């Protein structure tokens, strides 16, 4: 058995496994750090991630009730300002008023837990139950591809499994659930993925089987899709190339890219006097 008893699955680590089992092993089981660049233009990439962070914070601040004009007047990046204006225009269109920003939910997945960190969950009593995710990447995927992404499958499944506490203690009927992606770089285009009982059951089976497979697999093979390795930091560790791929071709998820800076405030006792 590969997984420690306290292992927690997420859309991120499951997607990594599906993309490349070896990547999953290195990143989550061996916690291997490897200092390669994800893309060729790291300066632009870094800036893009910072913009994404700034935008997500703005939305959270707005949802917390900070005044729009105060927030808007402090944006010093034209692109972020455009995204924010687009979000103000339609980011919350048809979004129920009961809202839980930056919500974390967990559901059981076999012997383990499955955790989802959602940008926003909004529920209409007796009506729609939405999971919203703000996307700031340049690339807007085809709907059929996005439907297969683990994020789409995991978030809806977790809300169906663990959303009762947001719904007066009643489990949320799957047919009320919808996953909605909102694309900042595409003037607030939206991809919607409704849910139903069949899909819920299929997701449950798929996710449980996947977890069991990960726990029992004897070897974590490298992905057969070698083009993925260009955007993987482990490529030189796996002898899968030297140069990173082009930022223009990067289709990854900004949520799973660079780690945020660890705050070493809590490591105060590490000071050597």
């Amino acid at each position, binding site marked *: 058995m590969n997984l420690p008893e306290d292992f927690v699955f997420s859309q991120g680590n499951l997607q990594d496994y599906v993309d490349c089992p070896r990547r999953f092993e290195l990143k989550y089981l061996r916690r291997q750090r490897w200092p390669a660049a994800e893309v060729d233009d790291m300066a632009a990439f870094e800036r893009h991630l910072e913009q994404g962070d700034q935008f997500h914070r703005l939305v959270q601040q707005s949802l917390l009730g900070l005044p729009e004009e105060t927030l808007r007047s402090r944006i010093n990046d034209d692109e972020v300002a455009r995204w924010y204006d687009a979000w103000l225009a339609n980011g919350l269109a048809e979004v129920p008023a009961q809202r839980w920003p930056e919500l974390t939910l967990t559901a059981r997945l076999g012997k383990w837990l499955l955790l989802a960190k959602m940008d926003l969950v909004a529920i209409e009593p007796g009506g729609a139950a939405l999971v919203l995710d703000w996307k700031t990447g340049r690339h807007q995927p085809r709907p059929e591809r996005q439907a297969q992404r683990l994020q789409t499958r995991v978030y809806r499944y977790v809300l169906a499994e663990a959303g009762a506490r947001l719904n007066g203690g009643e489990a949320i009927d799957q047919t009320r659930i919808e996953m909605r992606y909102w694309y900042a770089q595409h003037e607030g285009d939206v991809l919607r993925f409704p849910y139903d009982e069949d899909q819920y059951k299929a997701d449950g089976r798929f996710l449980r089987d996947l977890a069991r497979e990960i726990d029992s697999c004897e070897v974590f093979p490298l992905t057969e899709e070698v083009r993925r390795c260009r955007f993987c930091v482990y490529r030189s560790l796996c002898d899968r190339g030297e140069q990173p791929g082009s930022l223009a071709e990067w289709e990854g998820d900004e949520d799973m890219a660079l780690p945020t800076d660890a705050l070493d*405030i809590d490591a105060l006792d590490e000071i050597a006097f």
Partner: protein
Amino acid sequence: MYLLVKQQQVARQNLDRKIFLEGLAGTGKTTAGIERVKQLLQAGVPPSAILVLVPQQATGLPWQDALRRSRAPGSAEVRVTTLGTLARELLELFWPLIAADTGCAQPLAPPRFPGLELSQYLMRRFVGGEIERRDYFRGVTISRNRLYTQIVDNLNKSALVGFPPEEIGSRLKSAWRGSSEQAFIYDDAQACASLFRAACLRHNLIDFSLLIDILRKNLWPLENARGYLTRRYRHLLVDNLEEDTPTLHDLLRDWLPQCHSALLIHDNEAGLRRFLGADPAQAHSLRALCDLGVTLDRRRAMSVDVAALHHALAKTQGREAGPMPKGGNGRAAIRWPGRARWHPQMIDWTVEHVARLVHEEDVAAREIVVVAPFMPDALRFALQTRLDERGVPHRSHRPSRALRDEPEVRALLTFARLAQPAAGLAPDRFDVASALLSAIEDLDPIRARLLADALYRDGGLLPFEHIRDTRLQQRITFQLGEKYDRLCSWLARVPAEQPLDLFFSAFFCEVMSQPGFGLHRRESAGATVANLVDSARNFRRLLTELDPEASVTADYLRMVEEGVLANQYLRDWELDRSEGVLLAPAHTFLMSNRPVDYQFWLNVGNSGWGRRVYQPLTHPWVLSRHWEPGRKWLDADEEAAGAESLANVALGLLRRCRKRVYLGISEYGERGMEERGPLLLALHNMQHHLSSGAADV
């Protein structure tokens, strides 16, 4: 899980009340707290409404691990965090509402968080020149970095204790009864602290002290910000309250009345982080705000023999020892070494017994800890190499060496100097040879030196073909020459002014970790270089914002050489959960809050057990809330503080020991000096109590 009746009062009952839970370490307080969280979840409390506050991340690990292991729905969602992290979250979210009132000069710009590593750099940048100009700290014989650390520490204490930073110098001076020269040094410390604070405000730099200051003065009084926490987290649990600071205690005075339930956990006879502002006395005063007080007094961790040992040592230390544990034999819980004259013999003895426990008695390596008052590089290295030889897995909460001392990092720093001649920091020939040795697989020191001698010219590397002597070419071999050329041509293509972090990352990935090169599949080297990349990236991002004209590369390389930057630091995701024998300073182990079966106490004769670290610019007692203004710090205070510290550490260790303690003693210490420190004396005195205690059995 089996719980004692008193634990059940906390864990399974009174879920809507505020409880003050106290007792010695190892009596099951944290266990009861973790069970309470599970019970709250079972009772339908949303995990997002539960907050567990701990003084530092490491103290939170037992909570996180236990909650995750329970696999109870919602258990992984419960937040376990520190005041510092909450403060930063609040500041980032509510900055637009408070910026204008913080004193920061750029309220429309975002705040910047330099972190510990960069605070040292900023201290040097903002204060270093003034120290030189005004000849501050004349007569103080500590390194510049330690001096900076203590200035930062003074600012932190002013924020955490809650007095104005302008009072640092006067408070320290008023307690000083020695020469007037030292009193001037406190003036210097005040001047530097004020300069640093002013510079931080000028540049929106929120170091830890300013963060806490803003939390107290701006965020907590703001209803939006305070309510963000108090409305969200209705069920509070605070562990190791005695190790936390007056700022947290003040916040709790406001917060507790608004909570639906609370559990405050207090370790009696602790206060191990006093040097970081912990205030056990104030922590205990929060008991008055709780509905119910529960005291756990039955040992859960210590065996009856260790409890007898604890009893004897407590009596020796003049602590309340309680009744002698029935059936306990303290002598059975302690191993004295044979006659060890020299320090290396003590290390050999230690490793031999650790290996015996692991290999012959099937003790899990994670159930053994080796502690010392300090864990300097030499001691750690000696232990690690000997444990490796005996096949004993080990781990260390602090890395063995500063980042800049790792060979792969030194190599990268040298190649950066070669690739960026504009920085004007050409390496010397010896460093070039060492770097080539690290970078090229199968290259030996002699050939590396030959390459450097023949091809390192005017700050750059010439191609292999520049060696005209065919015998020398053959001696080095064309195969190695080809790799050398590949490396050189890569360096020649590096764009001028490429940021250092990107250079490190690309050179590592595209050259050094490729087949045929020195770091190919070297996983530990990858982790080390990742830390270097982080350090360089953080530095670049901060410095380019502060001073767009600055020479980032040259500054970074200089700061690393001077030891200001790239001292390894622990990242949260690296917090050690591995299985080996833990090698750690005693304080680090104590704060990890996990008992083990076997402990090895090294350098028992060292005076570091029970003596304050030499900190001429700061003072944890004088800068606390309890110090009477104008009172002098006397020798008797120093002695009492030392005795208290020794008792807290030694008894605290025993309370976290289940089976046996091994004492590592040598007549002569690491520096060849005879050592008879207070712990050794206490243990000798304790033997008398152990003998007489036997009669109680």
